[in-house]
């Protein structure tokens, strides 16, 4: 059961600002989703291996080789603010 407090916590972690109306709506929606998982819980998974990945793929490696870097101007093209060749951001402590 998800409470409004849980929704506030998740919203904070995701840096989302929500109104009290939205808080109520998301609480209801998330509970609906959890309820749906409750029905999945009824499935017999006795013979199903747990999985971390949905595609039948494993061991996709690349060789240790250095390739091209982005030219500085391209690397910094999207940054909202810069100082010399650095990305400039508000300080977070």
């Amino acid at each position, binding site marked *: 059961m998800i409470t409004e407090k849980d929704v506030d*916590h998740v919203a904070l972690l995701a840096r989302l600002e929500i109104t009290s109306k939205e808080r109520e709506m998301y609480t209801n929606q998330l509970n609906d989703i959890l309820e749906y998982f409750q029905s999945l819980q009824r499935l017999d998974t006795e013979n199903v291996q747990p999985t971390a990945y949905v595609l039948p793929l494993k061991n996709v490696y690349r*060789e240790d080789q250095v390739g091209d*870097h982005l030219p500085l101007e391209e690397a910094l093209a999207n940054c909202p603010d810069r100082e010399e060749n650095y990305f400039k951001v508000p300080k977070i402590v």
Partner: protein
Amino acid sequence: MIQYETVIGLEVHVELKTRSKIFCHSTTAFGGEPNAHVCPGCLGLPGALPVINKSVVEYAIRAALALNFQIASFTKFDRKNYFYPDMAKNYQISQYDLPIAEHGYLNIELNGKTKKIGITRLHIEEDTGKQVHQGSITTTPFSLVDYNRSGVPLIEIVSEPDLRSPEEAYEYLNKLKAIILYTGVSDCKMEEGSLRCDANVSVRPAGSTKLGTKTEIKNMNSFKALQKALTYEIERQIEVLEEGGRIFQETRTWDEEKGITISMRSKEQAHDYRYMPDPDLVPLVIDREWVEEIRRSLPELPDDRKERYVREYGLPAYDAMVLTNTRELADYFEACVAAYPNPKTVSNWVMGDLSRLLNASGVDITNCSIKPRQLSELLQLIDKGTISGKIAKTVFEEMFASGKAAETIVKEKGLVQISDEGAITAIVEEVIANNQKSVDDYRAGKDKALGFLVGQVMKASKGKANPALVNKLLKERL
């Protein structure tokens, strides 16, 4: 007053020296212009997908085997979510519940006793970018971010809370570094950040089995800082408890200048990283044959090498430990012994004069101007009686400074030992004539006076007289 017991666990991050980054093809080279070593992958640009560098997995397994770990047969990558500008993606790719290796250990030696320290896990993750601050970090409103380091491969090695003192923590880190250096997967330079260490510290009444509340100490940038920070933090915690207070679980940073740890408690809520399997990376099934192949390629590690030095060379355990601390020093020592098969003599020179000169000049053993063959030539000159042991030290310093052969220096500077009885007798007689008081003292039973007279003869001969002969001739004439 209650006796307290200290409990310490260390989290060590080691940068792996692959050519390219962990999930993209950018270079791992240290330094460089800010943001010059980046690509869409390590900048977290939309659409860029990570692919694991095979060498990273190989190096991690290599380090793990050297630390007696069990290698997982199935392992995967997870996202650690947090908002902080040092990762452009807003998450760090790490390993959570299925790390590449678990249940390792290493042995430390302290006061002649060996102690086994458990190592909980070793996992692979990507390094973060670096933030720099203009002016004072406390007042500037901005951070400047350089993503060159973002995506450099790391292994994180988490010890069990088995360490009981700052000294044990120091020895653990030293041994860990030595072993990793032997495997060649990292250069472990604390000053460049390729070896970093955080500590979890708590205290509890001696005899208690319940762990006290721990603090996490960060920002210890040297071995010395580790020891100082731990010593400080333990005293701080005991003081708080003694005054009836309680310890808060928090992260504290070591302030090297002030010599204290400072709370980094932020207004943010407790960490909640919401780990989840990274859907961009497929799991790894580690082939047992590959693991065995890596195991076979490991060099002889410090503990084995040390034991062999005691067994084969008959060296004291202390010598063996110092000599095998780095692979390069041990290789040097063995090359010397091959050319001059008297291990203890070689050990004395390598651990004494050579180490002193290397430390003083900041030169690495691999760049040492005295090659093993040259050291053996010097030792042979002593054996032949060409020079005295005392003169040999002067010659050795000259060899170190100039890279010249011992024999060349001895000839150039006229340092050949005087073993001619006639020549020494002349000096001896002169010294006896000029030091009547010491002569009388010696004759009156003051043995110390002889040492003074020997010293005078050596001085008069500019250190070149054969000391054994000087002793003999002096005694004959007294």
